[in-house]
């Protein structure tokens, strides 16, 4: 099956959701008619407030993810360089990995009183262990043969990082990043709802739900899914395809 054929099948599978949505609408009062939602979509998307709220949530996710990635890198390097640090940090990483997102969100928001820092830190806290564990596994399985080659040919540290180590751990980074990214979106919505945020996707979703504006609930949900899918397929997978083009 060619990649185009695979894509066609994937889109067809996605389109099957529409009749399923329609069936669900006919059997419950909470699910809106997909046609009604589709009709409301252009107006919703043309409203600048929609994009402002999306932008706010996106910024929280991006900054939190960046912090989580950076902290994960530092933790992974420390864990592979020193056995003592590895032992100590592994407890923190394990605890962070198993902390429920909602608990982390409530704690961070209680500490930071619902400030911007609280939202960003929740995302960072939840995503950093995924990066730390992924990168640590990558570094632990480093190819010593290539390391020796780099040493014999006197490759400088930067060249080694850029051309030997980074490409080697790239699959681990991408795998961790994908998990961390998915989790970041989930946790930010939880944090925005629990933190009684005034802005952002979670806030608007919660507002629409509280007032039972079901069309708006559906619209926010659709936009959320579109953004997450775009980030996964449009950004992460495209980058992955480029990085692994040698395979």
């Amino acid at each position: 099956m060619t990649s185009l054929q695979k894509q066609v099948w994937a889109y067809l599978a996605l389109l099957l959701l529409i009749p399923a949505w329609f069936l669900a609408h006919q059997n419950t009062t909470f699910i809106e008619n997909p046609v009604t939602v589709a009709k409301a979509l252009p107006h919703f998307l043309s409203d600048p407030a929609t994009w402002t709220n999306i932008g706010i949530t996106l910024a929280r996710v991006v900054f939190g993810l960046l912090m989580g990635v950076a902290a994960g890198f530092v933790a992974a390097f420390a864990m592979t360089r020193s056995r003592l640090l590895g032992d100590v940090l592994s407890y923190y990483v394990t605890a962070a990995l198993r902390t429920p997102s909602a608990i982390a969100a409530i704690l961070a928001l209680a500490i930071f009183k619902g400030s911007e820092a609280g939202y960003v830190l929740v995302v960072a806290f939840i995503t950093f262990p995924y990066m730390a564990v992924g990168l640590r596994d990558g570094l632990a399985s480093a190819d010593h043969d290539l390391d020796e080659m780099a040493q014999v040919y006197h490759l400088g540290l930067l060249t080694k990082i850029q051309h030997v180590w980074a490409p080697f751990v790239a699959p681990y980074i991408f795998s961790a990043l994908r998990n961390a990214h998915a989790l970041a979106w989930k946790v930010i919505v939880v944090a925005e709802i629990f933190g009684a945020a005034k802005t952002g996707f979670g806030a608007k979703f919660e507002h629409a739900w509280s007032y039972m504006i079901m069309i708006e609930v559906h619209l926010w949900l659709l936009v959320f899914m579109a953004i997450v899918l775009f980030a996964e397929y449009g950004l992460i997978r495209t980058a992955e395809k480029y990085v692994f083009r040698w395979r």
Partner: protein
Amino acid sequence: MTQETRPSVLKAVNLGVTYGQSEAVAQLDFDIKRGEFVAILGPSGCGKSSMLNVISGLRAPSKGRVLVEDEELFTAQSKPPRLGYVFQSHRLLPWRTVRQNLEIALAASQVPRGTWEARIDEILSILHISQFKDAWPMRLSGGQRQRVSIARALLIDPSYILMDEPLSTLDEVTARSLRQELTGICQRTNATVVFVTHSIREAVYLADRILILTKGPARIFEDYKVPLERPRDYDDARIAEVEADIIRRVQAPWGLAMREESSVA
């Protein structure tokens, strides 16, 4: 210039390698001259890898010295010598194309960037792999990858090239063709080569001199000058005679049963 009057490129003086209580290399003394092709022959586990690690600069010896062009190899203040290394497996960066793999070695060796293109084109042409310049290593056959690895070693004008059984993983047809080309290329480029092999016939075919090691811990049992002029034919009866002569010599020190073999694994 006779071989004896050529300048020394790689010299080991009383070289020894110990791992804890275990002695891998007891004592090695040799002097390899510019343009020489020297094969190192020894039974499995005799300490060849330990020796290679030391003369490639990967680890310091436990005792003795290594001199490269009369400079100490293991001194912090000296600029490390350029050396080429053809490993048993190609050890190319799979995420870099052939050209990029070669460029990394050139950059690390501080070869002026303006000369890269011409150098790469020339060496790939010599090794008959010009058409793979922009290919990913994964798309190449084992023989082609090893050619790229040889190209990388030759490209940087190294003081000497270490080859650690570079043909042992290839099929016999590919290995034969590469062996033949290797002799021609090394003569053309006047490269100094230290070639580690298990195959006595391969050593006889390729080398000017064979350093025969004892069972571990390694010592030089014999510095054997190959009594054959070049060019050589791999299937020549005289090569078989020299091979048989070496087998006779190594029977006792390697602790082998008396039997005729074309190679010693």
